[in-house]
């Protein structure tokens, strides 16, 4: 399967991805919260970005008490059925990375659905920090470019994401 990953060394916090995601969601899903986030600490001059890894063994999926979450048979993304979600928040607690959210407008769980296999965020990442890759090619990239961070960590390592 393919997932969206962030090459943290290339993220320059333009926020294109957050905005494209947010605009797309508000058009199609009556939502407001972007499912990819970029956080910038201007005081410390630090940038961190990340989005759902579509875990094979997804804890969000496992804990949902009403089966509002399911796998997209096409993309293997974990999807939220907003009409079923009861906004209990269990999934947001369960996600070890903080990539499951409650939408500020619809008040339902929200997460990256890979836009059905054509992620908007990747289209607009002009810095080349976002990739939509198979897990295998991510492993290849890591092996070949150990200097590149893929944003697979929940929190940035102290210092090393920055020069």
């Amino acid at each position, binding site marked *: 399967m393919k997932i969206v990953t962030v090459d943290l*060394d*290339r993220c*320059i*916090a*333009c*926020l*294109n991805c957050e*905005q*494209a995601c*947010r*605009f797309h969601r*508000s058009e199609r899903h009556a939502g407001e919260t972007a499912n990819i986030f970029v956080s*910038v600490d*201007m*005081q410390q*001059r*630090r*940038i961190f970005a990340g989005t759902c890894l579509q875990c094979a063994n997804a804890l969000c999926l496992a804990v949902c008490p009403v089966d509002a979450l399911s796998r997209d048979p096409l993309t293997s993304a974990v999807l939220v059925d907003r009409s079923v979600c009861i906004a209990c928040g269990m999934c947001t607690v369960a996600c070890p990375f903080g990539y499951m959210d409650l939408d500020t407008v619809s008040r339902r769980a929200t997460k990256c659905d890979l836009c059905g296999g054509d992620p*908007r965020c990747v*289209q*607009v*990442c*002009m*810095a*080349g*920090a976002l990739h939509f890759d198979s897990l295998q090619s991510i492993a290849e990239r890591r092996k070949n470019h150990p200097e*590149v961070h893929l944003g697979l960590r929940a929190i940035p390592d102290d210092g090393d994401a*920055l*020069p």
Partner: protein
Amino acid sequence: MTHSAVIEKGTLPTLCRMCSNRCSIVLHVEKGELVDVRPMEGNPVNKGKMCPRGKAALDMFYHPKRLLKPLKRQPDGSFAPIDRERALDEIAAKTLQIKNRFGARSMGVWKGEAVGFLQQEEYVRRFAHAFGTPNYFSNDSACYNGRFLGHHLVVGFWNPFPYYAEADLILLFGTNPPVCHTPFMGEFTDARARGAKLVMIDPRLNPIACYADVFAQPIPGTDGALAWGLIRILINAGAYDHELVETYSTGFEAIARYAQKFTPDLVERETGVYADVVERIGNLVIDTRPKISLYMGAGLEHHDNGVNNARALAILACLTGALDIPCGLIWPEEMPRNRLTLYDEKPLDHEMPIGKDRFPILYELRRECHTMTAMDAMLGHGKYPLKGLILTGANPAVTNPNTTKVESALKRLDLLVVNDLFMTKTAQLAHYILPAATFLERSEVHIDPKYQRVYLTRKVAQIPGIEDEYTLWRDLAFRLGFGERYFPWEDETRVNAHILEPSGISLEELQNHPEGIQYRPLTFKKHLSRPLPTPSGKIEFVSAYLQEKGHAGIPEYVRPYHLRHPSKNYPLLLTTGARKTLLYHSRHQNLKHFRRVHPLAEVEIHPEDASDLGIENGDQVRIVSKIGALLVPAKIVQAGELRKGVVEMYHGWEEWRINFTTMDMVNDPISGFPLLKAVPVRIEKAGS
């Protein structure tokens, strides 16, 4: 539905013009309706990516508030629809009245950034001269020309955009490339991945400075002193390109002598950048030269000493040896083409182009009349009156300095015609408003000098009753009696063919290559085989041309206005114009998604300044300068984000026009640029 795509279903490739970078995009059409915009592969400018501005092109095209019919001002001040043919007849009749009574030069034309450059600009320039007026105005009176002149006066050309990815050191002055020019982001990150160093000089911290090896916040307007300090370090270390200096330059001794007083200590006192930081930047330059991309933004030119600061930095770039190398000052080669301007065929220098007496260099090198002087001419204080103006895609009531004066000047006109997409502040003052076409509704030739590529965009959509720019100028030209002679081409396609004719590239070839065609392979170090396009054919550290015009030959550092005239009443410095990711000058603020991200104007203020003034985040404050005031909410930024004593506000808001406070009469002596980046102000808490 009045809006329709030119096909029923399928895809239409074109170039995006939501900003000036022109990325390749593909419009998707279903049932005759444009439904999506996607990035297109194959164009090195955007490499298969695009940004959210481009994604919103359809929100602009289908915008419910778009002007769809010509409007005429009624005696009570309201607007009523008018038939297009009739509107053009009346406009032509009034234009001729002005010509008969005051002379052709009392009419002016003004082209804004929103319609673009190249042929869109040349239609307007052509129209002016064909009619008989030298008075062509544009947004360039306050953007880009300052840096254009700064480089031209040193090396005779300017290609603003280097190949950053090839650099070992990227040195940025007063600019925020990821936001201003989104396609360059990838080049920056490529350079970094190769281990390039980044130095950023800006009073405001932008996120890309998170990666800077050196980030320094100078006092606005003092960049020239820093440039001279770096020049001194290079010269005294002997670490400059000796061959370039000895064989291809003039005036080295003069700059070597002048630079001596700019010791790191003096630079620190003048700019506020610590002496050891100055030395560190100097050493980085020495270690990495000549593989240096030195890029300056509009942050440098909006000062009363802007051109000389830009010249000093261009000289620094030359000393490092970065002349006409991929990461450096690229000397672009033009595509052979037919120009539409009439400067050779019908020169009008003798007609006293407005502003030429005050800023002759701006006119001589750019054929640009000075918009701020034009306001005086409208108010009756010029050498002759300016009575009528036709504007297209321009919004000076928002973007020109001294809004109070701009509005009263525009109101004094006998005829103001505005061609635009929306009812802008400027359109509200017009006698006639014409509905303009977006970039999706026209076909034109685009040239990108960095990649030496040429593109042809096609009309992908239409709205009945809305005409492209060429048709507007042609229709007016025929009514004014010079259509047959000067606007003989029936439509844009024929103009495009005419422009391309000398290039050897046909319309058909370009149609088959929407991603563009390289018109000439890139070659570098061309100065080794032919003279530079300066008067001497060499790099001009000293400009005899400027001396002739009564200026210093070398770019002497002149202290900025606020240091020459310190004032207790106005203790803070206002910089305007830092870009927003989604807005583009005064464009796009009415797009619904964008407005949710940027709902309100804010003046950014340092936390210590805010606490001194008793201001809390979100408080309404009044920005007061010598010439005007504006009420706006305050945003307290983090301490590192702004230099203390500097406040910053976006320049394009229709509802919060910061140009009520900026100065039109403090100008750079060479470019005539207004002071927009270091305006002395005070901030008052509203109600106090």
